[in-house]
């Protein structure tokens, strides 16, 4: 019998969906409460892997994001938490005392509780050319793809921390970086704004709305509209890095659980979703401030709430 087949036979105390900071933090707490735990996730690290350095996680004045993910992973591995990584969850049946999670490869896992920590995904611009040129000049991962744009002119879309982080990733590599965003001012942290403003490579274009990405086989430019003037302009760029925020990965649950207008799962102060035995934490929820440290804290709360739920039923 394979490990996966054995896992299908078991009834877990908790199945954690997602292995970003929230899910991994939840796992540490559930395993220390001796809960039979299974993590199911497509990847490890979640959105944390999209960034280069983290400067605001307590205890680390500056840490490489991948090193931080590795530390999280190592911590979880030390407790021998069962996990299946690289799996896509296809369906969740969260009602009743025994919940069921079905993955796209047809496996079915059973748990007494579920913690949803599925995080967020990149928000697309939804403009012509975006989908067509993914991997051919359109990128959502500056830490991955910035090295491929040595000496090139590029555009970064967005004015928040993610966009500023992408611009900073590109400053040492690209020739010119056009920072295009809707708001009148940058909204990212002042420390990042200062770094970007100091760079002669960065051209700041506030109140501009991207309207089209164009090219032949690959991206050759971007078209945008000045929101004040209404004027349409184009820029010749080889790359467009889209960093306009995230959407919650709540699609599997939106018909079962209550979500807000952004699609975030509504939770109370103990990470309860309103459905018995189903908890949620991290960026998939309506808890504000999408930060690693918040996700880690929420993960621990979800785990302890799941534990309280189980002992209350014992």
């Amino acid at each position, binding site marked *: 019998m394979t490990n996966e087949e054995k896992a299908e036979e078991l009834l877990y105390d908790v199945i954690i969906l997602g292995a970003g900071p929230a899910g991994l933090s939840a796992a540490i707490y559930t395993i220390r409460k001796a809960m039979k735990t299974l993590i199911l996730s*497509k*990847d*490890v*690290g979640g959105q944390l*892997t*999209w960034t*280069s350095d983290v400067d605001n996680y307590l205890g680390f004045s500056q840490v*490489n*994001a*991948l090193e931080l*993910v590795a530390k999280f992973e190592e911590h979880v591995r030390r407790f021998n938490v069962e996990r299946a*990584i*690289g*799996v*896509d969850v296809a369906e969740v049946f969260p009602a009743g005392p025994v919940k069921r999670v079905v993955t*796209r490869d047809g496996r079915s896992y059973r748990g007494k509780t579920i913690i949803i920590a599925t995080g967020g995904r990149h928000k697309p611009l939804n403009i012509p050319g975006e989908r067509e040129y*993914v*991997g*051919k*000049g359109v*990128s959502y*991962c500056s*830490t*991955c*793809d*910035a*090295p*491929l*744009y040595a000496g090139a002119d590029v555009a970064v879309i967005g004015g928040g921390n993610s966009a500023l982080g992408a611009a900073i990733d590109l400053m040492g590599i690209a020739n010119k970086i056009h920072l295009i965003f809707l708001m009148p001012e940058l909204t990212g942290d002042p420390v990042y704004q200062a770094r970007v403003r100091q760079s002669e490579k960065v051209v700041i274009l506030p109140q501009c709305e991207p309207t089209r990405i164009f090219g032949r*086989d*690959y*991206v050759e430019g971007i078209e945008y509209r000045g929101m004040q003037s209404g004027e349409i302009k184009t820029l010749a760029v*080889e*790359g467009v890095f889209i960093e306009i925020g995230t959407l919650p990965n709540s699609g599997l649950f939106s018909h079962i659980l209550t979500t807000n207008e952004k699609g975030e799962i509504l939770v109370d102060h103990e990470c309860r979703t309103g459905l018995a035995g189903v908890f949620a934490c991290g960026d998939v929820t309506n808890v504000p401030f999408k930060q690693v440290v918040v996700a880690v804290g929420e993960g621990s709360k979800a785990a302890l709430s799941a534990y309280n739920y189980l002992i209350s039923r014992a």
Partner: protein
Amino acid sequence: MAKKVKIYTTAACHYCRQAKEYLTEKGVEFEAVDVSSDPQALQEMKKVSGGARSVPVISIGEKVIIGFEPELLDEALKGDQP
């Protein structure tokens, strides 16, 4: 005969690391190159992928996959696993 598997990566690319771990877990032998420090490998990556500007690029025999997509990897590796 096993298909030749080559993965083109950059140093800070987590998806690349995950793809390598996925291949390793499946017992697939592969060659990994970091295109951020190897211009020749970058040119080769662009050539095999039709000009991709995103990593990982994974070539499996004649097939080329851009990004870490486990299902596409499984499909491309069919009949090639130990």
